[in-house]
């Protein structure tokens, strides 16, 4: 064992400092910033997503924890969030920065970030099968968990309604 | 001649006694008991009970008989894609060949009770023992299954590694006694000391070689379950699978007998006397007991070690055990030169 880490309390201020740093780094790429609970969502334009990702990566956000897609059927968009954080930089590791883009629900295509963040490769495959979002430039875009004919149904979109046994439902 | 004498002369007719009685019946019994011992000892180490429910009073010993019966009456499934002839014959030949060395190992110094009297019994026993692994490779190849082939290839790799070691280390005894005859070897040991004391390095090398040849832990590589299912035997079922599994133990028993005679003094504390009882039966029992103790040591290693990786096993064999065998051989020559034996 190299060393044991000692616990250090996370303060609000430290988070704030990091947020400011990220905002400064991304500069004009930021469309809007939304502070969620436990993460910061930074909206960027779709066509400049890769640029923003490279900048975040260079800042030290070295991996993506979760590629979260939410289907807003009423708005007609998929909200795609790359929730990135850091392993090597302890300061950054305390916060989660989400690069958020909205893409058209009917024509779900967007650039792949798997060449920037390798850690997102499998998650992009997962999103591809569950939402049908096509990641352009992904090296190996195949379904990951589902068989292709089930993946065709895009099970995690709000169009897919889980059928339940009708005994207890009128 | 009374009936008993007639029966005794049939039973103790050396080829029948050594091939049928010892070679088949005793081997089967030893294999069953050793399997039971292996399971029970491992269970003891691992804080379990082991076989128990078939006759708890006998500590579950008949469990293995039950298993044997199950194998015997299980349906043999032969996949359509295999090479039928080889698929069926390979395990049978391998089993037969693996107990055949017993036929040339004498159990007594009385010439009447030698199955095949000859001066080169060490060489012949070793030569026969080297044939059976080929059929295991063949079984794997005939199965036409990727896991079988990988297992067969591993088996082949292991053969190349242990064969030379086994032969060299056992021949070191011949070098020391200037004889290829087991009788001379045992007599030499009775005059001085057992070869396990005179030449422990050769014994160690031979021990490891036997462990490798019968895929005992830590060299249980060709059949390693987590990588290649059952290695060469993946496609086998029923009694053919039982034969395959049993063949390794039978071979281990045959090798143990060779080791017992070559290194552990054979029938040593006992000087064969006149008659069947003192001249043949008792000496053979001594040899079998010695072999059995060796088998128990082999079996116990299962609960201590995992398995080596193939390349590590080969590396260990060539870099460590092979020089050991060479040194053992050298010690044998030096002992012969000094006239210790």
């Amino acid at each position: 064992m190299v060393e044991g880490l000692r616990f250090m309390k996370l303060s609000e201020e430290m988070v704030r400092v990091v947020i400011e740093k990220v905002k400064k780094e991304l500069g004009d790429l930021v469309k809007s910033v939304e502070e969620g609970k436990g993460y910061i969502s930074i909206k960027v334009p779709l066509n400049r997503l890769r640029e923003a990702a490279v900048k975040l990566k260079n800042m030290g956000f070295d991996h993506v924890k979760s590629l979260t897609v939410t289907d807003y059927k009423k708005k007609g968009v998929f909200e795609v969030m790359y929730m990135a954080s850091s392993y090597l930089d302890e300061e950054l590791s305390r916060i989660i920065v989400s690069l958020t883009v909205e893409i058209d629900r009917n024509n779900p295509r967007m650039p792949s970030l798997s060449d920037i963040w390798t850690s997102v490769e499998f998650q992009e495959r997962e999103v591809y099968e569950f939402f049908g979002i096509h990641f352009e430039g992904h090296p190996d875009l195949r379904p990951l968990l589902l068989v292709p004919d089930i993946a065709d149904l895009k099970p995690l979109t709000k169009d897919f309604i889980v059928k339940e046994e009708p005994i207890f439902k009128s | 001649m009374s009936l008993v004498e007639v029966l005794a002369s049939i039973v103790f007719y050396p080829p029948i006694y050594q091939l049928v009685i010892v070679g088949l019946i005793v081997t089967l019994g030893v294999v069953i008991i050793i399997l039971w011992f292996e399971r029970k000892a491992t269970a003891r180490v691992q804080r379990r009970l082991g076989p128990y429910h078939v006759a708890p009073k006998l500590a579950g010993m008949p469990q293995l008989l039950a298993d044997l019966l199950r194998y015997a009456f299980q349906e043999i499934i032969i996949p359509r894609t295999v090479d039928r002839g080889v698929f069926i014959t390979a395990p049978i030949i391998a089993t037969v060949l693996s107990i055949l060395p017993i036929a040339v190992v004498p159990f007594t110094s009385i010439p009447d009770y030698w199955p095949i009297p000859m001066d080169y019994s060490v060489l012949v026993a070793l030569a026969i023992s080297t044939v059976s692994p080929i059929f295991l490779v063949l079984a794997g190849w005939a199965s036409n299954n990727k896991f079988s082939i990988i297992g067969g290839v591993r088996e082949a790799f292991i053969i190349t590694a242990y064969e030379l070691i086994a032969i060299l280390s056992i021949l070191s005894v011949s070098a020391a006694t200037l004889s290829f005859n087991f009788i001379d070897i045992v007599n030499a040991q009775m005059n001085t000391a057992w070869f396990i004391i005179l030449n422990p390095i050769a014994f160690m090398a031979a021990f490891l070689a036997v462990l490798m040849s019968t895929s005992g832990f830590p060299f249980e590589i060709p059949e390693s379950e987590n990588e290649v299912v059952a290695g060469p035997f993946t496609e086998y079922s029923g009694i053919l699978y039982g034969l395959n599994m049993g063949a390794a133990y039978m071979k281990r028993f045959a090798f143990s007998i060779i080791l017992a005679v070559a290194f552990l003094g054979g029938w040593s504390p006992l000087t064969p006397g006149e008659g069947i009882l003192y001249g043949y039966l008792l000496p053979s029992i001594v040899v079998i007991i010695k072999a059995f103790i060796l088998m128990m040591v082999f079996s116990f290693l299962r609960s201590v070690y995992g398995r080596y990786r193939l390349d590590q096993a080969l590396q260990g064999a060539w870099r460590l055990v092979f020089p050991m065998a060479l040194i053992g051989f050298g010690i044998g020559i030096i002992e012969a030169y000094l006239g210790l034996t």
Partner: protein
Amino acid sequence: MSVSVIGGPKRESDLKIPGTEVRKIEKDLYEVFIGPQHPGSGHMRIIIRVDGDVIVEADPDMGYVHRTMEKLGEIRQYIKNIPLFERMAIQDACNVTVPYVLALEKILDIEPPQRAKYLRSLLCEINRIAAHLYGFGIFGVFIGHSTMYMWAFADREVMVELAEKLTGARLTHSYPIPGGARRDMPQDFPQAARKAARYMRRRLEEYRKIFLDNPVMKARMEGVGYIPKKLAAELGVVGPVARASGIKYDARYNDPYDAYDEVDFEIPVFEEGDALARAWVKVEEIKQSLRIIEQAVDWLESHTSEAPIHDKFWAKSPPLWKKVFEKEGRVKLLPMMATMKIPPGKAFARGETARGEIVYYVESTGDSIPYRVRIVSPSARNAIVFKYVVPGHRVMDLPTIYGSIDYFPPEADR
């Protein structure tokens, strides 16, 4: 909407069920399917291509135990998701569900009482030890060491029984709920916990003797599955895998939750990055977990018993509920909890399970069911190791790597 999944292939892509399609592979390569009906693979398949004995390409094919957790999460009430999600890793039930509960608490903007925090952390650590022992057992049998397997599984029983004493269930405790925990600690628990800790420490020493310092096992593990620090960060591996590669990251430390900011513990970090280091990380983590258990038990013993649930819920409880708590130490669930509406909001929470970090993203629209639940489990993130680390190793190293990253298919497939 009616959907039919039965029927012939519609397009050419439909034929591409992994493993069934006809693919061209290079000459001299040999394609071997490890799994899913394979003694050494668990519920997953790894398609490897070997050149001789060396793997040149590995393609993990997961999803054999996919249970649509995310979709089911969207059609069930908030509280029903807790028993659902803990099915991902039943021997690690509390660790897996705590982040979900944390996310809900973030949206509800409530903080559980201190006692509940300690209780949750206590169960989390018990679960962590049980899961590590489970992983150890599987690892042991993967590389042919059946004694390690049996020992680890036998000793796991101690932890499982401890969890039963605390929660009433051996596995799938459904212990944490938004705002607290479901049971208080029984009177005789501290003694049992301390005894178990003493026993476990003694056993760890035996493990070291038979497994970690066993020359054969050491030869199998040393230098195998080496992940350099940079690669580990790049692949985003989690938990013991990351910490064995020198990454100082633990969700309990970097984003503390529950009682972890009050107890004293260390996070073991190794630099070697191989299978042996990963095994050692687990051993050291078990030691730290035992420390946490002892501290938590001490704290719980020295503080007076109170209902381990937030006042928001406890104040509304009828007298019968309070009587049950006094008598049995059990917090009866309020009926309103089942249909509890959660205010609109989005929350992200992370927690450290035995196998690594699990993250939840929960989105609420003010309904009684979540709008979206996103789960990324540790094994799902570690699966990428198969693709990027396994090539270049020998076939016999595959079980070593598989076992050392403690990959758990039900958790990875969700």
